[in-house]
């Protein structure tokens, strides 16, 4: 009965139903997200065939441990986002439900063309949601770049179809190694660009700033953690298990990812708006995650995605609340905002610290695995870049935190009276959720063995055999 197709169908069905019953849109949305989250915890790994036709011809949904992690993570985050910002949903309940269906489809599907369709569903929902900010020129930019990207992706998979005669991922993956590098160059490149738009890799991430910077408390976490996280999982699925990369191509994509990482972090360092800091750091982290996938460090990448996506959820929610309550998210104008909202501040701080990779938070565990993985692969350059970027990241995060926690001019002892006007940032419910999610970051980073057991379930993710950190190693020869 735990058919993963339900994860796609139920939100879709509810979306159609909520068009008929207009009044109850909000509650139907809540119901759909809730059902999905519960179902996500009950699906098991395996293959689900749709329509009763065997895979290369029919479409199948493939649940591996990797997708399982993604599905559970993304659905739970969706639930949290919706619960936190249910007051902002308004007319968008249909769109959100459809987006959820699209996201689950992207994660689950085992067919390249089907992936294209679900990607389109998600992206179109994203276009509509981004229009919420009423900055239509940014939405149009997103729409145009996104359409070019999806056109490229379509062209890429058609070329793959031409070369292999199949659209099923497993089938394609089995047939591709027989082909030459030259033949595969164009399709892989096209697919890379197509996915890259959603993953926010550097040259094609021009839309991100306009869209993220104006998004509200509901839309911003949705984009930054849910859709971005999904795109990263899809990237991993495609580039680790489906498409074989030649050495040159690996090198080039790796260089692009690392450039994204470095430039993203540098650009974040320069910003003054909270949301812009966060969005550029998202771009940077996306670059690092793709670099990890390309290098085959799937476990480290998954942990990093978890850390990043969860912290971005908290941080963007709170950043959205800044613009909502103070009409600005420039951190100089928000100095001392957490003086009046200490618990919100604590949640934000934990999320920020986890993003930076501070011990005992899950971000640190991700960092450890990255280092171990890279060293194991004999790569000594990327760890250096990762650590240098951690310093940059830490620098802007600490600057942000200091500004938000400690009001007062330079040379003055910081006092409560210097802080901005007192306003309640988040409702009690939302504060509690943020804090609980932040605690998850702590627990996940402390109980490392449990985390790794939950994430891998004893099997390597996407065939990634590279070592990762577990406690027994640290105990040495005891």
């Amino acid at each position: 009965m735990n058919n993963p197709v339900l994860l796609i169908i139920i939100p879709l069905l509810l979306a159609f139903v909520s068009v008929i019953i207009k009044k109850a849109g909000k509650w139907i949305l809540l119901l759909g997200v809730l059902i999905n989250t519960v179902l996500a915890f009950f699906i098991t790994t395996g293959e689900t065939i749709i329509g009763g036709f065997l895979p290369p011809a029919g479409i199948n949904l493939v649940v591996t441990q990797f997708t399982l992690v993604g599905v559970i993570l993304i659905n739970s985050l969706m639930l949290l986002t919706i619960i936190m910002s249910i007051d902002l949903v308004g007319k968008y309940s249909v769109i959100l439900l459809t987006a959820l269906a699209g996201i689950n489809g992207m994660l689950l599907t085992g067919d390249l063309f089907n992936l294209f369709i679900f990607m389109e569903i998600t992206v179109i929902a994203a276009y509509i949601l981004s229009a919420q900010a009423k900055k239509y020129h940014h939405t149009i930019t997103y729409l145009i770049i996104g359409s070019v990207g999806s056109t490229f992706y379509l062209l890429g998979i058609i070329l793959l179809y031409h070369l292999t005669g199949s659209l099923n991922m497993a089938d394609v993956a089995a047939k591709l190694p027989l082909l030459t590098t030259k033949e595969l160059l164009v399709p892989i490149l096209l697919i890379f660009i197509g996915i890259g738009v959603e993953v926010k890799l550097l040259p094609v991430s021009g839309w991100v700033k306009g869209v993220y910077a104006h998004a509200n408390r509901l839309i911003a976490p949705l984009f930054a953690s849910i859709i971005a996280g999904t795109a990263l999982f899809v990237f991993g699925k495609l580039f680790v298990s489906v498409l074989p990369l030649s050495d040159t191509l690996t090198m080039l994509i790796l260089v692009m990812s690392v450039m994204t990482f470095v430039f993203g972090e540098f650009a974040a360092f320069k910003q003054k708006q909270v949301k812009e800091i966060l969005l550029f750091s998202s771009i940077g982290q996306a670059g690092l995650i793709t670099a990890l996938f390309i290098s085959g460090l799937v476990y480290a990448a998954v942990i990093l995605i978890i850390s990043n996506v969860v912290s971005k959820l908290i941080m963007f929610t709170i950043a959205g609340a800044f613009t909502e309550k103070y009409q600005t998210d420039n951190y100089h104008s928000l100095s001392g905002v957490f003086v009046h909202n200490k618990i919100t501040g604590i949640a934000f701080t934990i999320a920020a610290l986890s993003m930076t990779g501070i011990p005992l938070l899950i971000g640190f565990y991700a960092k450890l695995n990255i280092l171990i993985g890279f060293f194991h692969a004999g790569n000594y350059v990327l760890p250096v870049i990762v650590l240098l970027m951690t310093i940059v990241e830490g620098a802007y995060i600490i600057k942000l935190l200091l500004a938000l926690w400690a009001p007062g001019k330079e040379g003055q002892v910081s006092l409560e009276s210097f802080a901005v006007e007192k306003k309640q940032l988040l409702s009690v419910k939302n504060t509690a959720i943020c804090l609980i999610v932040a605690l998850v970051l702590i627990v996940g980073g402390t109980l490392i063995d449990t985390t790794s057991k939950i994430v891998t379930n004893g099997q390597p993710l996407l065939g990634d055999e590279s070592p990762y950190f577990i406690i027994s190693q640290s105990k040495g020869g005891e």
Partner: protein
Amino acid sequence: MIRLASLLLLLIGLYGVLTTKNVIKMIISINIMELGVNIFIISVGFITNGVAPNLTEHIDSSLSNFVDPLPQALVLTSIVIGLGITSLGLAFARKMNKKYGTYDLTMIGGMKDE
């Protein structure tokens, strides 16, 4: 030959997006790109002297020169998606024009966001 033409259409569309400033024109350019890709998809399934993949009184499945039916099915989907994106893009363009009084993206891009 048709493949070459369709790829050229794709590139013309790309050129259009690269050079035009008007949003409507950009959306048209994207349509041209999609058109190019759609024609390309059809051309991928093309078989010299092929017959349509439609069983009739005289045609049964033992024939070997059926045109590949899958790209045709795919192109149907692709066209519909193109329609969806176009309509959405035009709606955005209209809202943008209502708000800023222009279809020129660069003129808004130069404005301060706040």
